[in-house]
């Protein structure tokens, strides 16, 4: 297995560095952080490490989660491992003029305080190579508008758990359009459905965090 593959494997296993105790069978062995440094020392381009090790590893992690082979804590260990590698290559990526593949603004809509699902979406999107602007919980339409103006190319993600707050997704989308903002909008959360997304003219609906990456990639033309 070459170094790129080893790093990818360590992302999948969620092994950050030689000090990490998890997973127990890898404790004491080099992890993503150590291996990425080795790769840099071997002059492997940062963009190759990013795409072929870190993002590729997280893609497999997302698939494992969707297939019921991983729990969220497994994904988060992988995300942490990925982040430790990112910290090393980020300065180099800037000099290689490598860009994030896109920006996503996310928030739980007004009146709704639930954010576990939203936070998982953020983590998966970051793992997928996106820049994520998190507006938090109880987000009024004005905040979505403000963010949409600041990030005109961003996809906007709205989340709601309650049947009494899901209407605020409709109101937020209407407010965006009334302000002439045409950012694509995706929705998710226990109360949402594809039918509701169609009804409120959202551009997409995601059933879970793992699917959100594919959905966003599809909307920006990076996936079929």
């Amino acid at each position, binding site marked *: 297995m070459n170094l790129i593959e080893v790093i990818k494997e360590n992302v999948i296993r969620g092994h950050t560095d030689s000090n990490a105790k998890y997973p127990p069978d890898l404790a004491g062995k080099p992890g993503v952080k150590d291996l990425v440094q080795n790769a840099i020392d071997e002059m492997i381009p940062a963009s190759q490490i990013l795409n072929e090790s870190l993002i590729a590893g997280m893609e497999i992690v997302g698939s494992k989660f969707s297939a019921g082979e991983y729990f969220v804590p497994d994904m988060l260990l992988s995300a942490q491992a990925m982040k430790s590698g990112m910290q090393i290559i980020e300065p180099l990526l800037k000099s290689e003029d490598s860009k994030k593949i896109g920006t996503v603004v996310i928030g739980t809509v007004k009146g709704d*305080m639930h954010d*576990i699902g939203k936070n998982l979406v953020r983590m998966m999107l970051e793992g997928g190579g996106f820049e994520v602007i998190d507006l938090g919980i109880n987000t009024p339409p004005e905040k979505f508008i403000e963010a949409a103006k600041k990030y005109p190319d961003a996809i906007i993600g709205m989340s709601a758990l309650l049947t009494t707050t899901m209407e605020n997704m409709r109101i937020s989308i209407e407010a965006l359009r009334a302000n002439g903002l045409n950012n694509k909008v995706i929705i998710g959360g226990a109360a949402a459905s594809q039918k509701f997304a169609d009804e409120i003219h959202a551009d997409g609906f995601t059933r879970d965090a793992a699917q959100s990456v594919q959905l966003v990639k599809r909307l920006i033309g990076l996936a079929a």
Partner: protein
Amino acid sequence: MISTVEKKLIISNPDELFFGLAPKPVKCQRGFEIGNGVVYPEINFTLPQIIINESTWKEVKSIYTEIIGEVCKRAIELKTPALVVEFELLPPMTMNPEWGAEITKILSENLDVFYKKSGLKSALRVTPVDIRDTNRPPLMRSGELTVNMFRSFELCAQAGADMLSIESTGGKEVHDDALVNADLSGIIFSLGILAVKDMQYLWERVVDISKNHNVIPAGDTGCAFANTAMILADKGMIPKTLAAVIRVATVVRSLQAYLAGAIGPSKDCAYEGPYIKAITGIPISMEGKTSACAHLSYLGNIASAAADLWSNESVQNVKLLSAYAPVVSLEQLIYDCRLMNLALKNGNEFTLKYRNLMVESDAGLDPQAYILKPEIIISLSQKIIQEDSPYKMTLCAVDETLKLLRDASDKKEIKLNEMELRWLDILSMQFDEIPGDEINLIKKMKNGIYADKFLPAEYDI
């Protein structure tokens, strides 16, 4: 004033932990007593898809008026011995306490009418929302949201509530992150320190309000923690073993309400209720297969084994083929209660047989059900109450549950897959590193990854 836990269980024999009978029954104003030999239905309902604001308020009131009328009518037709109605306020109804009080008044007046006209015995449980969780990090003891939450208790008590409850959230701001990371130190800090301190603060005040208005300080639930875990486990997002561990850990924080003077019945979604019943002797409300309208679970039958009230959690007021959903839910609850009450009427042997069928039908299929077996409840409760502080009790709950699940898996009493066993190992490794001393964990957390999630002063730490 928070009292200390007795070192002896009120119910120490598993065969005395069953539905319908609690050592400390609770008397209600409209003619019946909970926990005195009969299981009663507790119906809860919520609005269909609607925004709550001034322009829709008239419609909101008419929906609640219609629901309570239909529910009472069906309760009389099915001859239920009594009915408990729970009104869980929605966030706007707690943020505007007058709104919650208005609905409380509507429900209470309707229950009065049906009591006087048709003899329907009833009680109204009112549950304001813990709106302090609206902002993060939350202000738990100050600010407009806290003021409005307590005012909501006051106004609802004045408006006709018979019992006050809440699904309190102290510590949730740390627990949410700790849960998805399966980080036991964060979970124990949240439940064994933050949640405990907030419960003590909150329930001393709710008990005072209840006394001032002559209503029942009923109880709380670990819903914000353990039910979140249960739902995430159900979706395959976290290990079920972790959800089971968290359930037992919530016993200690939920117990604080009763040590502060709450007298039950506990909240329906508190699946830790049977532990509370064993420790304190208060009657409990439970939900199981009849709450599938609100959320799925693996505890459909076993949840009713020690229930004194049998609930549907909540159902939206939508039309089904037969009737509106709250009426359908009530009918299901009443038939379940009829069977339990018939078992009770036929004596102890019959009751235990029926209880055991409900227990055994679920217990081996999921670790969250396994920890609700009566003999396990008694055994774990006995160990937990021997500890001297809520923190040490929480540590004990976690440690003993981890060992219990490992043992049960080894003995093949529950089946855990490879992923579950892997996480059981990781959780046990994590537990070994958690300080035995509360002060040290607080110090670690104040400087650790959750430092920006909570405000220590709001918990007096």
